[in-house]
């Protein structure tokens, strides 16, 4: 009798305790487009998630779903996460924009954060990093280092973010090397290592000795290393395992501070729908260690460029700039406004080829 009583009390206490904990804990969900081990984009978002766990300890519980395809299935995955009781959900790919908004409308009490998009709602914020600032630094190094004057660019989907990156890299490569030519391949995927490697190989076969990538895996790095005499840049993550060659530098996404701040806002009840777009200055975009394969003077110039951008002294899209069709875009000294940049759907003058629709 006594033992039964004891057990009942214990069970009751335990039940109450779990219930209390469950109520206290803030649940933060993450929807990833690739696997967390991709070594690039998703890997960095997951590092941000782990930073949230470490920062808040037991006060926060995180859940994630990886390799969620962009499209109809994303809506199911996000809905499921909301039904599981997530208080805050980060959807970390451009293609999750519409599904995020659709689910957000059904769950007004859940907060949503969509990466790299441009549509918000009362419970949907957007956040992104000014990757183009890093692309400018890359373009500078690429233009100075190429010997064949052919730079290969593996693009993913024809969305403003990717086009901005191509333009920023091209402008700064052209500035230091007027003979430079960009060859662009649209892979139509964020993550497909075999295809990314094939794309890199195709570009190298056609004379490119610099490969820039806007896809998520490290496969182009491996392909460049296999080919030899080709330089690359880490994308989204440092990819330092391929340093000092072929990877000579990188753009690193640092999401951790943002994720921690937003989780804190949910805990405090101060969360509001916002549009965040930070660059090198606030630290959301980092430039990875420039390796010794880069000549000292080029490295110095690149770092100077980086500092100028970080301090706001220089904007990568500063006139005079023309669009691809030859029409004027920015007058001398004029700086592109964020609206144009966010919706960018044109190449700057000098890039050949057309943007797919």
């Amino acid at each position: 009798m006594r033992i039964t009583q004891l057990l009942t009390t214990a069970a009751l206490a335990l039940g109450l305790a779990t219930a209390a904990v469950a109520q206290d804990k803030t649940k933060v969900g993450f929807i990833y487009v690739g696997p967390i081990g991709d070594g690039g984009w998703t890997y960095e978002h997951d590092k941000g998630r782990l930073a949230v766990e470490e920062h808040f300890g037991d006060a926060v519980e995180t859940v994630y779903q990886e390799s969620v395809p962009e499209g109809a299935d994303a809506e199911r995955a996000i809905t499921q996460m909301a039904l599981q009781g997530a208080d805050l959900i980060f959807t970390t790919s451009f293609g999750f924009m519409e599904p995020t908004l659709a689910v957000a409308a059904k769950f007004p009490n859940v907060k949503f954060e969509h990466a790299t998009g441009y549509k918000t709602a009362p419970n949907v914020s957007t956040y992104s990093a000014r990757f183009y600032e890093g692309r400018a630094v890359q373009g500078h190094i690429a233009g100075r280092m190429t010997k064949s004057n052919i730079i290969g660019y593996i693009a993913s989907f024809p969305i403003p973010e990717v086009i901005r990156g191509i333009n920023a890299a091209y402008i700064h490569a052209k500035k230091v090397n007027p003979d430079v030519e960009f060859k662009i391949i649209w892979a139509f995927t964020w993550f497909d290592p075999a295809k990314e490697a094939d794309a890199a190989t195709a570009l190298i076969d056609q004379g490119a000795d610099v490969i820039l990538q806007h896809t998520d895996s490290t496969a182009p790095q491996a392909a460049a290393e296999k080919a030899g005499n080709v330089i690359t840049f880490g994308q989204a993550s440092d990819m330092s395992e391929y340093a000092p060659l072929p990877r000579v530098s990188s753009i690193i996404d640092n999401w951790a501070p943002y994720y921690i701040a937003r989780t804190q806002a949910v805990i405090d009840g101060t969360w509001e729908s916002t549009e965040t777009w930070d660059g090198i200055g606030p630290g959301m975009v980092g430039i990875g260690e420039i390796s010794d394969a880069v000549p000292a003077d080029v490295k110095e110039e690149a770092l100077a460029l980086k500092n100028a951008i970080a301090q706001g002294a220089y904007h990568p899209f500063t006139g005079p700039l023309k669009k691809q069709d030859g029409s004027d875009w920015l007058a001398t000294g004029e700086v592109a406004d964020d609206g144009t940049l966010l919706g960018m759907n044109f190449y700057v003058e000098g890039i050949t080829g057309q943007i797919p629709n």
Partner: protein
Amino acid sequence: MVFGSIDPTLLLASLMVAATPILFAALGELVVERAGVLNLGVEGMMITGAICGFAVAVNTGSPLVGFVAAAAGGAVLALLFALLTQYALANQVASGLALTLFGLGLSALLGQGYVGIKPPRTPKLDIPLLSDIPFFGRVLFSHDLMVYLGLALVVAVWAMLKYTRAGLILRAVGENHEAAHALGYKVVRIRVLAILFGGACAGLGGAYISLIRVPQWTEGMTAGAGWIALALVVFASWKAGRVLLGAWLFGGVTVLQLNLQAAGLAIPVEYLSMSPYLITILVLVIMARDKSRAPASLGRSFHASQ
């Protein structure tokens, strides 16, 4: 010239490389389906082979041992499928899908310590004299061993199915397992062997991606190649020669479209991107207008008592 900066020699050489993973996987699945078993777990077996081969190659320093391990890894996963479907008589479609999910998860677990590591380089087999022939030397005679093994396997599977007694028995089991059983053939044993062969082939295909084509380990790196291989078997009407053609077409058009893009050809990229799928399906469907059809017992469970 339209082909501006594209070098046809390099293009054809990369075609052979791009086609090899799906060729291996599709050949294995072809044998499995000819034995009357539908294994939808090709993707899972490929990715398991990719990590097994990668891990062993890194640890032993020998790509060859890696490929052997990849075949073994794929076969072990296939054994699981064989136990489920041949002995427990589980539904083949469901078991196959489960195998893919399991393989993807297992490979991610096994591969945790291998991200960012470089595998030992697989030597190219430069065949003396032959590889010096202009054009053909580079296209045909300066690949790694696995490319030739894949081609040899096409011939072997074709000859086995068409000319040997073993091939006849395998086909009999796939067409009508009751009749084969009545004749005294061990239906389940033959099917298990076919499934193991299919798993080993898929494993080799996966390891080709992780050890040679990319070469690195990344989670989920087969990215749907297993599904392409599955579709290829159907569109190739369960014939080895057509699987080779299909793999070359698919690999070739994939590589070609990337090269055309890089060369700045004025064809909209959307059409180029879908072209590998369209062209492969179109050609194989046109070829399949003869009377070829699926093995009659495909996907049906067999138990001697029924």
